[in-house]
């Protein structure tokens, strides 16, 4: 069962928008600020003469300007001021803006959704970032953006009677449903540490959803989470054993990855440690190539043969087919139906990766925003939409992206980067260089991977899922819907907004 518990950042200095500056030449260490601030920005520890350095990340900025506890106005020496931190200016990119990264951290810390456009969309100028909800009625909602004061003012929505459950199998066979319309994306052991895999699995179990092993084997430690694990059969067939396929409820047949469609993988020799080699049934120290494509699949019939093989091994399993998004993705989806797939998992071109050529990430195949309605419409026309589950991934950063994907025609989504951000990823993109992730997430370096504690990580993810679910429930309420299933393909709930531009000039606010 999921319980939201506060899980603060594992870093002493959390990056935040506001930097509280104390002019030491003016400060007389009177401690007024420490007495005033209800958020604990200022502190004078017992036994110390001096007030500690301000804990800027707790500060809520000028929102408390008119409150009696606004430190800047009440400092007798005028020694305090607020500025925009240099880190805030530096972090983030067009897709994952500074506010989306920091907002995801906050949600993972508190489990409470953040309101306001800057926590809902990025700054890429297209796709989800140009789509807004066409709410029927916005009465009773004040100016957005003020709702985050004190972080506790906005409590999780009362979700009585609103369902976020989706079915993953609409065909014959085992019925599987998940309580939230999202599950964790495939990340292999080797690309991420075992602690991160376990944290993902724990969170998936707590929320009654799934996580995926990626290509690269099924670590023993995941065994107790079998009911919440999807195992992947990818082109290299690394770590695929009869046992792993028989253990799980869902098997994912991976053709391609959105970030590097058509390229296959390459694990460098020095990353193939004894443990990785054992799991992949390879020799340690030798480079491992995942070819592209499946060398045994050249037709829908070949594809069916492979799916039959999985169903033969594990008749209770349902099969997801993960593909990227070429122009003919709609045909691929229909082909997968005839091959016997239960889920068609579309991975958009702007999706995450542990390592991919930049040229592929930017250029090959189409963004998920186009692929979803394309496949949804085509399956409808073929009369197959009610038998196939469409799962979308590749650029689902927020609960709002998930909702938009569903309104565009998906049944649910898969998230990857958002989970890693919740665990402290800054999207520096150095997952593959040297010892791996400097933040201890996407690495198997024994020293670095100690940084993420399984319990803490699981709690951060549980909190993030909680925040997302609250937001989803809130949006469904505003549409007057009782279930997330009602939102599927509801284009009328969306409007394309050419006017949206993400305001990033923080100066205006301070």
């Amino acid at each position, binding site marked *: 069962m999921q319980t939201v518990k506060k899980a603060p950042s594992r*870093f*002493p*200095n959390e*990056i935040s928008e506001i930097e509280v500056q104390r002019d030491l030449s003016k400060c007389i260490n009177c401690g007024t600020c420490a007495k005033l601030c209800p958020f604990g920005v200022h502190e004078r520890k017992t036994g110390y003469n001096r007030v500690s*350095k301000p804990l800027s990340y707790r500060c809520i900025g000028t929102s408390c300007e008119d409150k009696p506890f606004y430190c800047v106005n009440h400092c007798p020496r005028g020694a305090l001021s607020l500025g925009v931190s*240099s*880190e805030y*200016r*530096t972090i983030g*990119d*067009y*897709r994952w803006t500074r506010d989306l990264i920091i907002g995801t951290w906050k949600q993972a810390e508190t489990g409470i959704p953040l309101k306001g456009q800057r926590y809902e969309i990025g700054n*890429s*100028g297209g796709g989800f*970032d140009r789509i807004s909800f066409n709410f029927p009625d916005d009465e009773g909602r004040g100016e957005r953006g003020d709702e985050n004061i004190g972080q506790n003012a906005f409590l999780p929505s009362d979700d009585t009677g609103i369902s976020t459950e989706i079915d993953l199998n609409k065909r014959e066979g085992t019925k599987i449903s998940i309580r939230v319309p999202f599950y964790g994306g495939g990340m292999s052991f080797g690309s991420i540490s075992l602690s991160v895999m376990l944290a993902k699995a724990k969170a998936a179990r707590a929320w009654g959803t799934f996580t995926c092993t990626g290509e690269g084997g099924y670590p023993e430690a995941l065994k107790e989470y079998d009911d919440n694990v999807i195992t992947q059969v990818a082109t290299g067939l690394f770590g695929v054993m009869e046992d792993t396929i028989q253990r799980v409820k869902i098997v994912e047949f991976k*053709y391609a990855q959105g970030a590097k469609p*058509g*390229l296959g993988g390459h694990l460098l020799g020095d990353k193939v440690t004894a443990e990785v080699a054992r799991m992949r049934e390879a020799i340690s120290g030798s480079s491992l190539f995942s*070819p*592209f*494509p*499946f060398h045994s*699949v050249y037709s829908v019939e070949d594809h069916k043969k492979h799916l039959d093989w999985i169903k033969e091994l594990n008749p209770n399993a349902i099969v997801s087919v993960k*593909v*990227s998004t*070429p122009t003919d993705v709609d045909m691929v989806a229909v082909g997968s139906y005839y091959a016997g797939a239960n889920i068609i998992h579309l991975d958009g*071109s702007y999706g*995450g990766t*542990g*390592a*991919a*050529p*930049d*040229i*592929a*990430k*930017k*250029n*090959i*195949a*189409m963004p998920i*925003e*186009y692929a979803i*309605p*394309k496949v949804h*419409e085509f399956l409808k026309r073929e009369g197959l939409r009610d038998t196939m589950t469409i799962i979308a991934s590749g650029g689902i950063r927020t609960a709002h992206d998930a909702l938009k994907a569903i309104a*565009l025609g998906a049944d649910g989504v898969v998230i990857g980067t958002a989970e890693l951000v919740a665990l402290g*990823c800054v*999207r*520096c*993109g*150095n*997952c593959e260089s*040297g010892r791996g992730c*400097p*933040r201890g997430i996407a690495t198997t370096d024994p020293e670095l991977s100690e940084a993420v504690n399984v319990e803490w990580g699981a709690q951060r993810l549980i909190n993030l899922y909680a925040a997302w679910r609250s937001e989803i429930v809130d949006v469904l309420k505003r549409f007057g819907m009782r279930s997330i299933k009602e939102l599927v393909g509801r*284009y009328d709930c969306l*409007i*394309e907004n*050419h006017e949206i531009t993400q305001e990033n000039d923080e100066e205006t606010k301070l």
Partner: protein
Amino acid sequence: MPKKYNVEVVPTPPRYIPIGKFEIERGEDCINCGRCAIVCIYEVHKRQDEDLRCMAEPVAYRCKGCFSCVQECPQATLTIREGTDYSRLGDSYWTPEIISTNWYQAETGKIPVSGAGYRGPFSGEGFDSMWTDMSEIVRPTRDGIHGREYISTVVEIGRKLPAIKFDSQGEILSHIPPTINVPLPIIFDTLPFEAAKHFDPTFLTFDENVYGAMAKAASDLGTFMIVDAGDWFKSEGHRGQSSHIIPHISHLTSHSFDADWIKACKMVELEYEEDVMTVVNEAKNLNPGTIISVSVPFGDNVEQIVEELTYAGIEVIHLYADLNGKAFNQTGKKSVTKNASIKDMTLEVHRHLVDLKIRDDVTLIVSGGIAMAEHVAKAIICGADLIAIDLPLLFALECRYCKDCQEDLACPVELKDVDPEWGAQRIINLIGAWRNQLLEILGAMGLREVRRLRGEVGRAIFFEDIEKDTFDTVFAMDESYDANG
């Protein structure tokens, strides 16, 4: 099995400390605890060699922006920001990222690879408004470590006959025009700027070293280098190294041919002028085996000019846009407003020739604003046979595109002093990395020949088209939506 074309890359470090993306500042209240040195895995933070009690200045250019040191510092005294030198690099087209990525490729010969998803804007102008396609089910293009080398990047320069005619004895009747095989669809263009010649008494050195590096790289790669038929070319010509050099003659009216080098060069390029054909015929008379290319600026009437030249028998047309891949505004004529990007103009010219059924009569070389490997693939999809590059060649030699040389200021990386051997290897590395990226794109499509990519718009996804195809259905309710808006 014949030997496969392969670009030999050799790591070649820069001469100057590169401009890194980040700046790190250590505050005065640092207590020299060394926590930053422990958490940084890129060796930005170290203790001072002369006094191990103190932390040294951060070596910022190594910083990869992971924020670990900033977040772990017990004194919260480290700050990180995007460096001003970095953000001032280049301009809005030749962005700091493009320049530094080209530096990286010239140094390592590796293709840029990173973790995490794409981080840029959804789409943009010109080449940024298209994506390349792929296929889920294709013939193997990566099979273990093999596969990629079986993709051919060879292109032919020259007129291609649709069929060859024979007489009753089996003798060839058709006149077979000369062609040149280039092992990759990238040649070197004339440089957009040089050291301010008139004020720099040492300009000849600049030419010698920079052009020397380019010529050596072109020769090693088996490709070609277009160069102004000026002093450097003439001295080089005397050294008999002209087999990989294409002289460019710009003022036809005042030209004087040196019959020797017309005979020595496989290809000669002439700047388009009204009476260009007279000069072409003169050159062809001197050496019928020489391929003549005419360079035509992208701008008004470019399609008509290309059509006329092709019908007149020109085998190669070099279409060039400005430095940023935009059409030229010809003075005295109405300005070109529509289709102003190299992507759209290439498409238009290509389609025009296809409509006239004369596309294979002429080879199109396209240049201007080719900044990244992806532009090569995209320009070819739009209809180019091959690409000529300019500025990236200078980036390979560490150029920072500060344009100081244009103002007669000293070059911060002293381009004129580059060692041609070093420079050639840097250029080879860059081209090797670009070619490998082209192979990635071809591999994803299942194509085994770059020649089959030319004009394959079906292998591309155009922003305007897909936005309309998809969102017209989705947002049909919204009357204000305008796909072309």
